[in-house]
């Protein structure tokens, strides 16, 4: 095998590995129409503040679907605890919306935004 190929193979492999491990912050950004989690969270906040619980619930459902798509992309570069935590905050928000608890729902969404900011960094 040529020396250049012998060197190139490990270099390409290492570069690929580094890319897989460090691109979480890039891959979490929306890539399609229905995977913009942070947009859905902002919409939810608006509806909750206006106490439009039905709309807020619809946006939450969209947010959960978007989150599922994002997780597939960032699972190799993000902490599992952060992923689980964001999942839990969305679940808790669901409960607060059902109970029509504005304060609780807003607190959970603020927490979700905070986790999102740190995700994959």
């Amino acid at each position, binding site marked *: 095998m040529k020396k250049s190929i012998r060197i190139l193979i*490990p270099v390409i*492999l*290492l570069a690929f*590995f*580094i890319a*897989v*491990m*460090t691109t*979480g912050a890039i891959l979490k950004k929306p890539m399609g129409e229905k995977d913009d989690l942070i947009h859905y969270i902002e919409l939810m906040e608006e509806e909750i503040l206006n106490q439009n619980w039905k709309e807020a619930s619809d946006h939450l459902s969209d947010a959960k679907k978007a989150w599922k798509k994002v*997780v*597939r992309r960032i*699972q*190799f*570069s*993000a*902490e*599992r*605890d952060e*992923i689980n935590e964001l999942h839990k905050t969305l679940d808790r928000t669901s409960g607060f919306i059902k109970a029509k608890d504005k304060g609780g729902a807003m607190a959970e969404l603020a927490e979700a935004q905070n986790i999102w900011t740190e995700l*994959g960094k």
Partner: protein
Amino acid sequence: MIESFVVVVRAIIAFFTLLIFTRILGKQQISQLSFFDYITGITIGSIAATLTTDLTSRAWPHWVGLFLWTLLVFIFQWITLKGRNIAKYIDGEPAIVILKGKIMEDTLKKTRYRAADLLKLLRSKDVFEISEVEYAVLETSGELSILKKAESLPLTPKDIGLLTSYKGISRELIYDGKVMEQNLNYIGKDEKWLLNQIRSNGFGSFDEVFLVLIDESNKLFIDGYRDSRNEKEPKTLE
């Protein structure tokens, strides 16, 4: 998210990273490793294991740790290759623990070896009497190198003036049923010649032969897959 799938990807990353890094670090054999090298190896392996299975933290910091440990080992290797004095300072020096049949107790203490450890190492070198030993040197790897007294050394052909024929290194002509063309060309023979040789030893084709070696005195060693076959003794070429 399927956890096991993440582990699979991380394991692939850790495995090939370790493979590449250890290739960069060179071919030091385990027996040549100093105690520090040994510990370093364990640490690097441990970081790779954590990278694979610790999903509570990102893979990247573990990979950086793996890279840094490898880099530091590489730097130390480079430094010790360049400077003999630094190498002595970092790796330590071999210590003479037996001199002309006498144990050097002070050296033994400094190296944290007990007499029982020394006796064990001597036994592993087939030495059961300390008085037989001229020198015993404790290497930096923890191995014991021994020079026996002249009267305790085994007799060699040279001692009795016996002439021996040159042996040299054997070359593989067939390995696992496959003909090694390069070695065959090196000795100036072809497959037809090789086939004749194995046929004269009772084999029908190359596939039936596990290993064929030829030494520098052109002596063939042929081993077939079926051990029950009545193989002839290795044959010497004309």
